[in-house]
């Protein structure tokens, strides 16, 4: 949860200067804290990000901690395979709405954990999911506004200690139940808002592709949910393009604004081309 004192006024600067400013800011922050280990790992996580961000966002400017987007995760991951992460959008700071949110875990083999497209007027302001975290790393949420601005928030997660690994706990069970879905609907938390919450759960091993078959010694091909869309009566609420950093049995909880009483529809496609579809009636919200 680092607050970098670096905002839109620096947009005019050459990129190299901006990067240097970030690195200096981080150096200053952790130099002051005196935590030698954290200093090295936050710095190395950030170096990975600096090297990678051009591949993901080109040379577009990214505004840090502007308040448009916020990210929360535990400071220390308890279970490296299941790290809860929450992303919040502040509608007041992005009146035209948010087009997409990209979740990045710097040190993972596939750092871009997921990109979520948000439906127009879907009213999504909070999205939580669970991710694998391989090592000490920043988790970053980069939101793109309808106007095309990029806003980033970040939080640093220390990997779990002990023997918790970002791997499948019960591999036979994961394969046997693949494709099952569950949708939970929660009524609005505050009576004044129309938003309600959905929790979508999909059974899928979301295999990493980094394991070998013990008999053949060949790598087992990656097998994960690649695309997902959630709609209400054919109107997009949220879609995701994801990778292996999303935990086994992908799980998404988010608020949204219902339009009418149409059904909630879900379609997921994995890397084997398997398509999983389901739909549920919208539960009465009590409004």
């Amino acid at each position, binding site marked *: 949860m680092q607050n970098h004192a670096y905002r839109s006024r620096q947009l005019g600067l050459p990129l190299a200067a901006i990067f240097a400013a970030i690195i200096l800011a981080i150096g200053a922050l952790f130099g002051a804290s005196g935590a030698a280990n954290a200093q090295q790992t936050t710095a190395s996580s950030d170096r990975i990000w600096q090297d990678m961000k051009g591949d993901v966002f080109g040379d577009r400017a990214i505004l840090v901690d502007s308040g448009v987007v916020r990210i929360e995760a*535990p400071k220390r991951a*308890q*279970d*490296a*395979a*299941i790290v*809860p992460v*929450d992303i919040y959008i502040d509608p007041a700071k992005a009146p035209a709405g948010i087009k997409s949110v990209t979740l990045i875990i710097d040190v993972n083999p596939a750092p871009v954990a997921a990109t979520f497209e948000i439906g127009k007027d879907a009213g999504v302001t909070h999205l*939580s999911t*669970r991710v694998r975290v*391989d*090592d000490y790393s920043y988790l970053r949420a980069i939101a793109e506004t309808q106007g095309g601005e990029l806003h980033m928030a970040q939080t640093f997660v220390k*990997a*779990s*200690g*002990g*023997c*918790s*690994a*970002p*791997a*499948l*706990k*019960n*591999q*036979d*069970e994961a394969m046997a*139940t693949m494709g*099952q879905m*569950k949708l*939970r609907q*929660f009524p609005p938390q505050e009576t004044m808002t129309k938003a309600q919450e959905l929790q979508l*759960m999909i*059974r899928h091993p979301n295999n*990493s592709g*980094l*394991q*070998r*078959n*013990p008999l053949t010694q060949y790598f087992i091909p990656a097998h994960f949910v690649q695309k997902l869309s959630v709609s209400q009566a054919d109107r997009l609420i949220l879609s995701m393009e994801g990778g292996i950093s999303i*935990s*086994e*049995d992908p*799980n998404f*909880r988010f608020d949204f604004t219902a339009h009418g009483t149409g059904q909630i529809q879900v379609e997921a496609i994995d890397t084997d081309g398997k398509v999983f579809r389901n739909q549920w009636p919208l539960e009465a919200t009590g409004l």
Partner: protein
Amino acid sequence: MPIDRIRRKLVNGFACTAVSAAMLPCCLGRAALAAAYGLEFKLRKVADGVFAFQGVDELMSAANQGAISNLGVVVGADAVAVIDSGGSLIEANALIAEIGKISAKPVRYLINTHMHPDHVFGNAAFRQIGATIVGHHNLPRALEARGAFYLQNFREQIGDALIKGIEIIPPTMLVDDRLQLDLGGRVLELQAWKAAHTDNDLTVFDSATRTLFAGDLVFIGSLPTLDGSLLGWLRQMDGLAAIGATRVVPGHGPVPADWPAALTGERRYFEILARDIRKAIADGTPLRDAVKTAGASERSNWHLFDDYNERNATAAFAELEWE
């Protein structure tokens, strides 16, 4: 605290001595090597021809040489079987040295009860003395998925000196369901379990003395860790209790303990954890909040509770959501 730091420094300071010693095994034997590291390694007799080492109730560290889990030795007329290899090569070599004092028979089998580092990090020492490594049929795949992560993650936790030379070595003799190992005059019965502590749990029963080596399917006093299936563990609890043993060597905790009374504590913990998590799920409480309080009433009953309870709750939540 300062003493720990000094001790760690000393331990790390010995690193270069140990490395050169490892290259000159004729000059400095295993026992001397272990002694140089200050590891007090004692096997205790549990029953006739059955011995065990009791690990400390701590997380693996440079100071404890990774010796946190219980290890077992069964001596037959022809051969010796060892249950788990410990959390470091130092520990494994100390164990091999102690076995040499008990029996001149060869160590024919090393049985790994499951994938965790405190039980398999010493495997290379047993491969070196020609033991066949035996494990659950799921163990090779579990180690493939985790081996690199374990080596990387534990380098920081136990230090460069202790991690040096540790290899992830999978078993070559696999147990599908049950397997008997004849040591001459006594037969060990190995049983592969469905996912519980991990998805590769194996127990070893010595029928001659009715001693059960339960691996981490049994924790006593030290908080059980959940890396497989809470429901699977609870479902198989009665099957475990039905094993006709009179005593158990648990994976962690006092050696030996009465059987099946040894299961009482962990069964209670898991039932309370499941109850708390089920309530949170029914209430719509998100995972991140639920795991902070689930199981809290068990806190005073366990060592290492703060190290592992929240992690257990996290795994339990993700599993029980699908009930």
